[in-house]
Each structure stands twice: as structure tokens, then as C-alpha cells.
């Protein structure tokens, strides 16, 4: 999720994705059983307009420690106001990006995390999400290594379970960023619909993470497995990570919102569930 490379590289990546042939062959799917035990969840039940459970979530506020839009030239100011992050009363958390002048920025939004509250190495990490839409909208469900304060990014590791660009509402992306393969050089893959979009219905986004693999799912579709031999650097996915949910506006990865981008835009989170594998 942290991108320090040029827009050009990102653009090339996008083009590469788009021009890759769309597979029409049936997968040779095999059903495998993994036994998971639920260890942490938030279903976001509660009255509309209230903040999410303070025992589970903390906030990233502002424009990032480097005053650089969280390393990505993002345009929003993150707040912990209900206008930007609150329960919708229907069992969802709404993270709302708004076009409003606030603290010197033209947009506001929110970014919540479980840093210092909950983290875990390995297991299944899933969220049921409905995407916002419009050019320049960049929601994500992702994780950072909990040791980030001692071991700076990208050495701490980053697992992006789901990223999405509002101008490509039928595509999502799963990635890892580590030493030697971060930013534009991240290991990433996209999953797309030919005749549907991620902003009209909820979908489940998940990874299943073990010692030597990370499997990426959309609903019941496994679309990517990353193994140590797939990364050109060190495999750093062997320690606890914490969870982040956010909606960014603008930035290197997604480009600027346009005058045609409708605001406000909401990512709805039905639930977040974390499992541990048990046998």
C-alpha cells in the first residue's frame, strides 16, 4: 500500500494488466479443507452515526508522518469524525470520503487499524466489503508488519488483501511489498469481472497465510498464491501483522479524482474476521 515509485511505473503495470489476456478456461479447481478457528471479529453492529468499537480500532489522523500524503501523495485528510467513519445502523461500517475543505486539504476520509490492539501471524484474514466508485478513489483492506516502528517499511512487510481503483470498478488487486520488491515492484495480481462491478454488491476478500504461502481470494475464487520463491527478495511474512481499512483519495497509485468523481463515496464494511488454522 505504500508506493514510493513513479506514476509511470504504476501506469505501465496497469496497462500490462489490462492487456493481459482474460482467461476463459475453466479452472482446474480442487477443493481443499483448511480448518480455521475464529479468533477476532467485528460485525459493526450498533446505532447509526457512532464510531466503531474503540476496543478494537484506532485511527490514523492527518496526512501522514512525513506530511506527504502517507507516502503516496494522497490528497485526503484522515479524521476520526463520524462524518468520515461511523456505523451505518444496518450492520456495516461506512468509511466515507468527502470533498470538503479541511485542515488545508480538499478531501477528508478515514483510516482505521488494529495496531497495538490486535495482530497475528498466519491464518485467514477476511472482510466483506462493498466498494466506493469514481476516478481517484482508492479503498484498501491491508496489513503491515507490527514491528514497523523498529523495522522500517518495507522490511517490516506489507500484505494488501484488497486494493481497488475507482476508475476500474470491475478490478481488485492483491499484493505483497517487501525488501527489494516494494512500491511499483510489488508482487501483485488482479482479479476482475467482465460484466459486474465491486461497487454494486458486497464481496468477501480474504487471504489465507501460512509459513510459505499467501493465497488471495475474492469470494470463493482463489486467484493468486505467492510463495517465497515468487518474491525477488527476503520473505518477511513470518511475524504478526495488524489490519488497516481505509479509503484514500488521489495519490500515486490511483491518480487524481476528477470533477466527475461523485462525492461523498463510501466503502461499506459488513465484517472483519480473523481466523487461526488449527488441526
Amino acid at each position, binding site marked *: 500500500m505504500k508506493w514510493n515509485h513513479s506514476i509511470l511505473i504504476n501506469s505501465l503495470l496497469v496497462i500490462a494488466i489490462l492487456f493481459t489476456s482474460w482467461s476463459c478456461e475453466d479452472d482446474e479447481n480442487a477443493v481443499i479443507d483448511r480448518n480455521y478457528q475464529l479468533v477476532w471479529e467485528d460485525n459493526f453492529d450498533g446505532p447509526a452515526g457512532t464510531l466503531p468499537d474503540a476496543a478494537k480500532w484506532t485511527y490514523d489522523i492527518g496526512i501522514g508522518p512525513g506530511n506527504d500524503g502517507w507516502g503516496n501523495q494522497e490528497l485526503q485528510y484522515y479524521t476520526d469524525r463520524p462524518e468520515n467513519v461511523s456505523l451505518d445502523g444496518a450492520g456495516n461500517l461506512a468509511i466515507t470520503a468527502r470533498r470538503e475543505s479541511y485542515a488545508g486539504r480538499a478531501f477528508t476520509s478515514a483510516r482505521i487499524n488494529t495496531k497495538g490492539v490486535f495482530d497475528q501471524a498466519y491464518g485467514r484474514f477476511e472482510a466483506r466489503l462493498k466498494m466506493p*466508485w469514481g476516478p481517484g478513489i482508492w479503498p484498501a483492506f491491508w496489513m503491515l508488519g507490527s514491528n514497523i516502528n523498529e523495522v522500517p517499511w518495507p522490511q517490516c512487510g506489507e500484505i494488501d488483501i484488497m486494493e481497488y481503483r475507482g476508475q476500474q470498478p470491475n478490478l481488485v488487486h492483491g499484493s505483497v511489498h517487501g525488501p527489494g520488491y516494494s512500491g511499483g515492484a510489488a508482487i501483485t495480481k488482479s482479479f476482475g469481472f467482465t460484466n459486474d*462491478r465491486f461497487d454494486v454488491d458486497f464481496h468477501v476478500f480474504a487471504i489465507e497465510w501460512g509459513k510459505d504461502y499467501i493465497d488471495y481470494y475474492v469470494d470463493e475464487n482463489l486467484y493468486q498464491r505467492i510463495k517465497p520463491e515468487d518474491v525477488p527478495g527476503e520473505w518477511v511474512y513470518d511475524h504478526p501483522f495488524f489490519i488497516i481499512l481505509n479509503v484514500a483519495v488521489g495519490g500515486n497509485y490511483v491518480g487524481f479524482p476528477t470533477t466527475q468523481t461523485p462525492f461523498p463515496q463510501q466503502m461499506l464494511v459488513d465484517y472483519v474476521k480473523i481466523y487461526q488454522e488449527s488441526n
Partner: protein
Amino acid sequence: MKNIKLKISTYTLCTALAIFTMVSCERSLDELEPASFPTTAEVFIDAFTEGLNYGAFGGSKVTAFDVDSEVKYKGSASMKFAVPDAGDPQGAYAGGAYFTSVGRDLTGYDALTFWAKASKSATIDVVGFGNDFGESKHQVILRGVQVNTNWQKYIIPIPDASKLTQEKGMFFYSEGSEEGLGYTFWIDEVTFEKLGTIAHPRAAILEGQDQVISAETGQNLNIGGLKATFNMPSGVDQSVEAAPAYFTFSSSNTSVASVSSTGVVSVISAGIAVVTAKLGEVDAVGSMTINSTGQTVGPQTPAPTPTIGADSVISLFSNAYNNVTVDTWNTRWQFSTAEDFDLQVAGNDVKRYRDLNFVGIEFTSQTINASAMTHFHIDIWTPDPTDLPAAFRVLLVDFGANGTFDGGDDSSHELSFTRPTLVSEQWVSLDIPLSNFTGLVNRAHLAQLVLSGDLPNVYIDNVYFYKAGAVVTTGPTVAAPTPTRNSADVISIFSNTYTNIPGTDFNPDWGQATVVSQVPVAGNNTLLYSGLNYQGTQFASNLDASDMTHLHLDFWTNNSSSLNVFLISPGPVETPFTLSVPTSGWASVDIPLTNFSPVDLANLIQFKFDGNGDIYLDNIYFYKTGGGSGGTTPTTAAPTPTFNAANVISVFSDAYTNIAGTNLNPGWGQATQVSQVAIAGNNTLLYTGLNYQGIELGSSQNVSNMTHLHLDFWTANSTQLNVFIISPGPAEKLFSLTVPTSGWTSIDIPLTAFTPTVNLANVFQFKFEGNGNIYLDNILFHN
């Protein structure tokens, strides 16, 4: 313990960047319900699909469209559109529609898509579907389509496909030149598709505005500004204009206002109703709140006719006087809610204001010098309660010596009127001494009149300044209408317009009590019978009127209750004809001579009038109709316009340099004969037997910095005449001209009468529509 079973694919991805899809790539329509109409999606792939027809729009260059096998996006051919240069004699724009004779069932699709490119970057005015050259009930318009030299895919979302069970309008387009220059664009692979990636339908009526409209019973209001907006696969919103048939309109109170399926609101009774609409299941943004005042209450009788002599009056609005130029009777200043209407009460012109909080009336272009006047007069009528503290206010503004607003020399004063001066449902005449307007220091450059107060409904008449103490006359203040008959068809007894037969005795002594005199009325010699009992007129010699058909008379009286006119032949044989008195202003009568039978028309010797009162008479003559020559040609040139040439864009005038290359008679299939004739040495445009007639300007004109369209027109026999200005689309709007005319009519039509329909930045044609023979001159824009 939760046991989750998941399908997992074997890790045999085609490439590292392959994208998996949830469904098969082959689109299947098998799930569509059986339909009685074909579900063919393709419109144009490499050729016309079965049953597809093409028709060019009227006024367009019909050869603009062709199939091109050289340039194509895919396959063997594309559609090529050669947009003509502005002023192309074969048609000034490219436009047409592709339609089928048998409808198609398009309910399984969500968009019309196509690929397009152009010989240069350009913006295509209009593309869409649903135009079937008929009702076009489900028309959808996408405006301002930007194309460039690369092929790009374009998507026109279907607002509600469930409506398209048998659609014939497959595709249409309309495009004019860019900056006057033609170019070429190509369109390929036109097909309906089920994309599935068009989301978030939204809808709007009235452009999304919540309008509040004051209305009254019988009024019809149109719900326009219908839009459907979708989020495209690119994440960008796109709006299309959708026909009313896609929407479901509803009224919150159908006893106050109903709304038709085409979005026409009919106001039925007093009350409040809110009209809203849905597009499918989506509530449309925007609404029309109708505040209906119910049945209109207005005056049934005209205001009292003024009796002040015309010489002592400066009139802004009255049938009794010649009125000075008033620029506008409703300046529509900010926060003013007033709407103005022109209507007649028993043949007398009246102005009506509705929702009057305040209204500006301006005569700034020719300010009024009322220095010699003593009073301001206005007649008002209101249906509204006039209980205290309800007030009606009159504000006069003088612009001072500089003649323009501000500059430190303006002065003004407002006076307020309440009960008992104000009375409901009666004409109230206010005669206000100008000295009461104490703050109105000067009145040599009066420029504004502002009416305001607590009466939302006010009818006004007879707005004038006058000098009190002047001679009050009981006679007419304006001359009788000048006759327009060709003098060759006339035997005139008494008229300034014709040579009268010589030697007539207007006061033979037949023992009558009537006093006969001849008096000037507005400079026109007029015959006056005072205290009529009876009165003869003796011709110098016997008069043969046997080849004449009518006797014409103009007469004026405000105190006669009986008046007959007689023709007399030897015997004496005499027959009366009864005239309707008293008159409201000048009455003109054309009496068929057959009414005077058995009088010998070949041997007339005398006239006689009998009755009572004081009678003014003018233009007593015999004439014949037929031969087509009677008064059908103007005898004078149209007035020469006096606008500064720098402020004029002239189409047809001897007074200015006209736009070069204008085609005054384009072949639009009309029946009208067009010619140019010299009237008193002035070149004049003549439409004979008008049905409709176009004018194609030599080049498209940007008239957006002009304020008015000026026209001089003259017609003796037209009963309908509309003028249109047209921008490519075609986007045209009519303005109705009052016909027939009495002499030349000069009109300055505010260009706002044509907006926003017509793009004033790109006017390329005129059109006249109606009937009769029309003389036209000085067709020009000015500011």
C-alpha cells in the same frame, strides 16, 4: 471450530498477470424471456443489419453519410460522416437516423455502444437512439461527444431497458461544422450490449432543480430537463437526456394538478401539489411544486377611456394614445417574482402582473421628459383583498442629466396607496400630482417605474403622464386609421388619403339642427357632427358607384346612442344602415353596397346620417375588392433602421452591409415564392403564398453578444406568421408575429425569446412559417 471449505484452483495460471473471471466470456442471451420481436443487438457492424433503414434529417446534407471500406475499426467497413462546411449549399450539417420498420426487443441490453474516430479532434453535437422518425417515444440523447483521431469506444446507457420492447430507433446523430469548417468522423461496431458494468442509476427532472411555480387553473406546465445518469465502466458518471416515456410522473395532489405520462402538468384547482418522477425504481432528483391560486379573477370591463387631449399626454401604455417606447414591462430583477401578461378586456389592451412583489418597468433607451407634465396616471384592478395595511406602491426614477443609471444625479420617490383609495375588483384610477413625488428632484430623464406592494395580482391600464388644466376634449385623440386600399379602386368622398370627388357640399340646408365642422384630430382632417339629429351630404354631380362593392366609414362617438347612414338615389330612394354606437375608439366599417338595395348605385346623389350625439367621421369612400390589387402592396418603404452599424449583424437590409453569401431561397421543399421587389426605391423581400421559407446564412453567426432580432414586416392578408432562428441540431424556436399588419410593423425581439433552445453562438438559419403574402425588410441582429 469452524470448518471452511473453499474451492481452490490448482496453481496453473496462464500467465503471471492473468485475470480470472467469474463468468464465461461468451455472452449468452438464452436467459432472456421469449419475445415476439427480434432481439437483434447489432445495428451496424460491417453493413446495415437486416431491416435497418437510414433517413437524413431535414436541412442536413443528405450525402453526408456513406459506408467506408477503407477506414474501419474492425471487420470490412465503417460508417463515414462527412460534416459539411458552414454554409454548404447542399445542407449545413450532417444528421440522420437509423431505424427499423419492425421493432426490436432491446430489454436484454443495458447500453448502445460504438467505436468512433475523426479526422480531427471535434465534439459531435448529438448522438443517441430512439429516434424512429415518428413518435420517438424512447429517445435518448448524448450531447457533446468528444472524438479525436484515435478509435475510442463510446457507451450510451439505456435509462430503462424494460421500456424497449419494440424499439425502432437504433441510432441517430447530428453534427455541424467545427468553427465553420467541415470534417469527417467514422463510427463502427454499433451494437446494443449487456455490459453489466454500468451502475448506480440516478435520474433528474427539471435538471435536478426543485422548482416552485405559481400557477392557476387551466395552466399547463411542461416537466423538462429529464436526465438519466449512470456510472460508466471507467468510474466516470455520464448523463443522457431521456424521453418522458422512461419516467413515471406523479402528483402529490391530483385534485390540484395532474401530470400526464409525457410530463405535462395540468393545473385543475387551487392548492399545492408537488410533481415528482421515478426512473424505474429510482427517485428522480428535482421537483415542481405548484402553488395554484385556482380560477383567475380579472376585470370584465375595460378601464375608463382617458379624456385628456393627446397633446397634453406622454403615454406609456394606453389604447387611447400613441405610446412612447418602453423597453420592458418586466425587468425581472433579482428577487422579483412578477410575471407579466398581455391580455385584452373587451377589446382593450391590459397588462396583468401575477406574483407581483415588485416589478421594474424601464424606458431607459428613450428616457421620458415629463418636465412639462403635472400628473402621473395609472388605472389598476386587483382581485386581492385591500384591507389595511395592504398597499400598492408606485416608484418613479429619474436618471438625471447623464441619462444613465447612477452617476450621482439620479433621483426617485415612492408613493404608497391603501384603502380607501384601493378597492378590490374595481378599476381604480390613480391621478397622482408629480409634486407628491417629493424626492423626484428631476423629471427630464425619467427611466424607471417600479410597482410593488402587497397585491400579488394587479391589472394595469392607461399609464401616462399628463398636464392638468389642458383642454379636455370629448373627441378622439388619435386620427382615424389610414386607409390602405389602392386608390385606383376607390371613389373617395372625404379622406386625407385619397383625392376626393370635387364639389361635395357637406352641409346642405335640409332644416337640420346638426352643427357641422371640420376639425384636425392628431393632424388629420376629420368631419364633426355636433348635436346630430340628421345631416345630409350633397354630391356635386350624380355618382356612379355601380362597379364598387363597399362603402367604408370611420366613425367615433362617445355619446351617441343611435346612428344610421343612408345612400340616396333620385326618387328619392334611400336605405339606412345602422352603425353600432357608442364606439370604443375609432370604429371602421365596410358596408357591402348590396345592403343599400334598392338604391340605384349607378346614380347616387346624396348621403344622409341620422341619430343623436356628437359624431366624428373620416375616410368616407366607396371601393371595390377583387383583382388582387386592393391594398396588398406597401406604398412606403420600411422605416430605415437607425442602429449604429458597429452594433449590427445584418441579414437583409439596404442600410447595412449584409452577411455575405446568404441564400434567401434554399430549397427546403417549400411552396413559398420568393422575390425581391423595390418598394419606394427600397429593396424588400417578398414571400408570396407563404407556407414556410428558410434563409441560410452565408456563414454561421455568433450573435451571443447581440440582444435583439429586428424585423420590419408588412402583410395585408396573413393570419399567421412565425419567425424562427436556428442553430445546428437543428435547434429552433419560434416567435409569433402579429398579423395582418396595419402598415409596416417594426419589431425588436429579445434574443432571450429563442434561448436556451437555440445556440446563439452558432446561428445558421432563419425560417418563416405561416400564410399569406409577406413583405420583409431590415432583418438584422443588434445590441
